[in-house]
């Protein structure tokens, strides 16, 4: 079933047990919404010694948006700004690929499970919600990303 390419096992796992989820603690918090469906995310992080730390988020949303935020947290935590920028770039590219690329597993790790989302244009925004919040928070923390 085509649907299984969207809802991969990894995604449902992250959805059920999201990582880094909890009340954000840091000083700078960003709040993003997907106005189409009302999904929301609040995210907080810090940069210490050029590395992203203490990333936490909270929010409501569909399995795709929740899982994607969870995976994003795993992928950028502990990474340098340059490394995270690379992940972000690759992920965004994957989402815009309309199913034409598979994603670079070395960089994207679990996030390649989200490749199927790119075939469902209305869901791409769901997958990107957490990532856009991350990008915004990174910028507010002074990162050039």
């Amino acid at each position, binding site marked *: 079933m085509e649907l299984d390419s969207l809802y991969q096992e990894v995604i449902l796992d992250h959805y059920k047990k999201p990582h880094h989820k909890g009340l954000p603690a840091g000083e700078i918090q960003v709040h993003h919404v997907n106005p189409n*469906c009302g999904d929301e995310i609040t995210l907080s992080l810090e940069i210490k010694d050029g590395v992203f730390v203490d990333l936490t988020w909270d929010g409501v949303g569909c*399995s795709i948006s929740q899982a994607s935020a969870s995976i994003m947290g795993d992928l950028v935590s502990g990474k340098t700004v340059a490394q995270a920028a690379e992940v972000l770039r690759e992920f965004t590219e994957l989402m815009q690929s309309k199913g034409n690329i598979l994603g670079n597993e070395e960089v994207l790790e679990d996030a390649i499970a989200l490749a199927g989302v790119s075939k469902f244009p209305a869901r791409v925004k*769901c997958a990107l919600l957490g990532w856009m919040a991350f990008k915004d928070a990174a910028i507010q923390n002074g990162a050039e990303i």
Partner: protein
Amino acid sequence: MSSILDVATIKRDFPIFNEEMRGGKRLVFLDSAATSQKPIQVLDAERNFYTTSNAAVHRGSYYLAERASEVFENSRQKVADFLGVAPEEIVFTKSATESLNLLAVSFERGTGSLAIGPGDEIVVSELEHHANLLPWQQLAKRTGATLKWFEMEQDGSLDLSAMDRVITSKCKIVAITHQSNVLGSVPDLAPIIAATHAVGALFVLDACQSVPHQPIDVRALGADFMVFSGHKALGPTGVGVLWGRAEILNAMEPFLYGGSMIETVTMTGATWAPAPKKFEAGVPNMAQVVGLGAALDYLSNVGMANIHLWELELTQYALDGLKAIEGVRVVGPQGIIDRGGVISFTIAGLHPHDVGQVMDQYGVAVRTGHHCAWPLIRKLGLTGTTRASFYLYNDFSDVDIFLESVVGARDYFGKR
């Protein structure tokens, strides 16, 4: 049992039902509350306008321009007849959204009893679509007026116990929906309209969800203004209607300024044509207006009373089916009393987006999210619902597939 509508025949008029959906499924279209599908008769009317009569209406005196003006004004007459009002009272806009914004801005520019200013009150309800909330909310902000509202009960009705506090002598405008686009609930408008008129205010009816689905007698309802969108009533996209009582329309300020809405123009000033032309600046959406006329003809031929009854039958059947599915909760009114053919529901533990996605795999088109009525959704303590809405081209087999897909959605995530 012979059914109220001959849906098989009706369906054949809608070419989109020949399209294949994901996985080769047939289309089960249950999103008519967002926009309706179009019968071939409407498509032909539009095309016919372009291929036989296309010219700027009301401006040229050549043959094509005469033809164009004639079919255009015929359409205005059809809309007027459909609503039981006079053609001069029908203003064509691009959408219900524009119709409502037109009203709000005209009151901002108005004088005397048709002005909104500091201290005035504008009343809406928690049921409203953003299109019937934001123009008034922002008008209040700009003018220093106060926005008040009727609260919604969990069953989708309005709490009228606060009537005297909501509608006071300071009230100038009350704008409320004829039917919730999220829950299908039909608020009890008669006492509200009476209270509106008792304080000398004007009543604006958002009839987006009613005009396409049931017989309407605007005068009997007692509204002063009414709006709806053509695209939800089998008509083309890009055309909406504003009906207003002639004497009020004639006293109101224009919204868009430009060609065809003027009487005289100099560099320093201008005077306006009488309504409805005053409100129709520019070369209008001619083909869409003509298409809307054909759409209302189509609806009248099928019969609005029949359509209404049919939708309620489908709704009853779907409600019964949904309630029998474990984990499903119908939101809003539970029966078919005071409701139309719109059903919102949730599945325990599942996000509407995920529900809709699985249903899509069955060819079922439903809407998920806040349905442009975010305050209503928040009031229900939800972040969204899944919504199915019916129209004359739906039948029981559509509902069966719908129910099957709801079970499918629940099980898809439940099992994993």
